[in-house]
């Protein structure tokens, strides 16, 4: 049995890990929950975000500025993807959507590889986040502590934009009945475009914020995509609050299992997902029809 300090340390780490997982999953759940498109280019867009941070940090010494410009870049990329490809697939079956987004993902990853090569790139921790902070018996990286607060703010603002503004309402109505929304004189296509782009910005932002922590390689997104799926399945497919709670639960399971034996941490995560899928197929916050 691990000691109390170890358990408390791991519980805290689970919270930090959970917020990161929630942010990584948010882009996936936004696009799925509002547009009904399962975006398999999610992992690739995560990598594109991390590389955007890498490139922009060469030109600016400010991490914040790099992130802001990077978000602008992801927004444009989101617009282009939606206009050129995704908009033709809203009415197509899920299989087609999965195939086309999967293809987009491969093209993006190979573009990154062609431009930067296969080796990991270095993205330093911003100057204000360097070092580790001693909190009682627990020592924790300062940047990760700051990320908890930054991500909480980001997730809240994303939620407000998507679920507490008229734009969010238009999008959700447009998914249920695009014809009716059109008759009401609302340009539903433009709302779709914006939501897709916001989803792309969210995943790109996750890539940018995570870049100083992980190995920035063209294939870095693949593992995050798998984890994102676990998180949104736990929380309920397409539910934004579900992704946040799902992320926190996943983080706690991984971390607390590690207090006992780290080799079982992922096994426990998938075991919980399996149990949940049997007991409650729509996930914690999912509704029957959307699942």
């Amino acid at each position, binding site marked *: 049995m691990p000691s109390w*300090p*170890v358990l408390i*340390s*791991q519980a805290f*780490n*689970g919270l*930090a*890990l959970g917020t*990161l997982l929630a942010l990584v999953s948010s882009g996936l759940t936004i696009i799925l929950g509002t547009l009904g498109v399962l975006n398999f280019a999610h992992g690739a867009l995560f990598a594109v975000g991390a590389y955007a941070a890498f490139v922009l940090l060469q030109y600016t010494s400010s991490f914040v500025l790099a992130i802001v410009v990077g978000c602008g870049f992801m927004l444009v990329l989101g617009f282009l993807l939606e206009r050129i490809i995704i908009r033709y697939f809203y009415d197509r079956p899920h299989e087609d959507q999965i195939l086309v987004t999967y293809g987009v993902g491969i093209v993006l990853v*190979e573009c990154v*590889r062609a431009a930067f*090569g*296969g*080796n*990991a*790139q*270095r993205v330093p*921790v911003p100057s204000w986040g360097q*070092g*580790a902070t001693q909190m009682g018996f627990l*020592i*924790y*990286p300062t*940047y*990760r502590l700051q990320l908890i607060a930054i991500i909480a703010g980001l997730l809240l603002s994303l939620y407000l934009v998507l679920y507490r503004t008229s734009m969010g309402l238009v999008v959700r109505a447009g998914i249920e009945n695009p014809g009716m929304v059109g008759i009401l004189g609302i340009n539903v296509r433009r709302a779709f475009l914006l939501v897709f782009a916001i989803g792309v910005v969210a995943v790109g932002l996750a890539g940018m914020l995570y870049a*100083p*922590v*992980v*190995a920035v*390689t*063209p*294939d*870095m997104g*693949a*593992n*995050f995509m798998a*984890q994102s799926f676990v998180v949104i399945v736990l929380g309920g497919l397409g539910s934004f609050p579900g992704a946040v709670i799902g992320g926190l639960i996943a983080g706690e399971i*991984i*971390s607390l*299992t*590690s*207090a006992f*034996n*780290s*080799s079982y*941490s*992922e096994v426990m995560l998938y075991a919980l997902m399996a149990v949940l899928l049997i007991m409650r197929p729509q996930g914690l916050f999912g509704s029957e029809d959307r699942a």
Partner: protein
Amino acid sequence: MQFDRRQLLLGGVGTAAGLMLPGSAFAQSPATIGTFPEGVTADSVFVGLTIPLTGVFSGDGGDLKLGYELAIAQINAGGDIAQKWGLKGKGVLGRQIKYKVSDTEGKPNLDVQSATQFIQRDKAIMVSGSVSSASAIALEELGSREKVLYMVGIAGSNDITGKNCQRYGFRSQQNAYMAAKAMAPVVAKALGKNVKSAFLVPDYTYGHTVYDSFAKFSAEQGWKQVAKEVVPLGTTDYSSALLNIANSGADVFVNIAFGGDAVASTKQAEQFGVLKRMKLVVPNLSSFQDKELGAELMQGVYGSCDFWWGLQDTYPLAKTFVESFVAQNKYYPRWGAHIGYMQTYLWAMSVERAGTFNPVDVIKAMESSKAQPYETTIGKVYFRAEDHQMVRPIPILRGKKPSEMKNKEDFYEIVDIADGESVMNAPDFFGCKLGPYT
């Protein structure tokens, strides 16, 4: 099938030599086996290279490819460098080496698919490549089934010349056992005998064999293990494992994660303050780990690898290799390039020693290399007849401080070159049983 006069002559000479030397192993080689003699034309032979150019191993794969290409170009040109390796004339036995590279993404099934195509369509006389041990094992088995020689690329698992060893496969890189046995005394001398160690172990064959070997040999030096964190391959966030390591009170952090995993886990270890409190030991360094993490993080790290370009001060052939590689590719080669380069030359030398491309004779030439070691980029080496593992020196490196670096790729100093003979496992220790020749 057509023979040209040259082949007939060669065959005649071979047969005559065989007749003159009763009891010589060469006399029993079948006239037709695998892609021989079909794959040997009057002026060329074909070599198939299966290399991951995309996917997680693409960095190492790119380096490996450049090594093969440099060796092939030098052998085909037949200049001074090829002569220094003991080769005669242009090409191998007068044949130019033609080759194709197939991108296998690091997936064993694609390795097997491409190698099969090379053998059936192009009549490849030899196949080489691979960056992962899983690929190497699959290709070794294919080579033995098809009776086509396979020269192992980058692959460190004990199994390749252990329980999965094959008659048609030869490995030049040291196995995990050799690396650990060579490193443990050097590291114990530098970091102390009675230290506490914490291990980060990736959860697959490679990780476990390296852990077993290093834990065994470091324990013999008096090291005490206080933490062992097993993590899945491709883990992105090591925070929970690192938190345990940070709280373990260890003096040394032994990080077995490889490639991108090594980069991510080391970066995160630094952020958790682990590298400030513990010395880092990496039993097998990844090719571009130095560049990817930077000297700030890699300073003081102890590790081993197949080849470091600083060996050019010790071995003349290493100097010609490093110089010609830098001239061609504008960066210092890593061990990927070295393995590709050396394996190509070793094969060419063995063919010329055997006097034929017949794989059975070439295998026997390699198996008898203990009596006549090869002079190479890492000095005198030979393949062990019992398991086809090369007996070779092992460089032990220590990361330089940024201020000690003479150029931007001068990441390591060579603290020791362990003698190969002294670190070998017994040939049957990992259960090697080589298959038949024919």
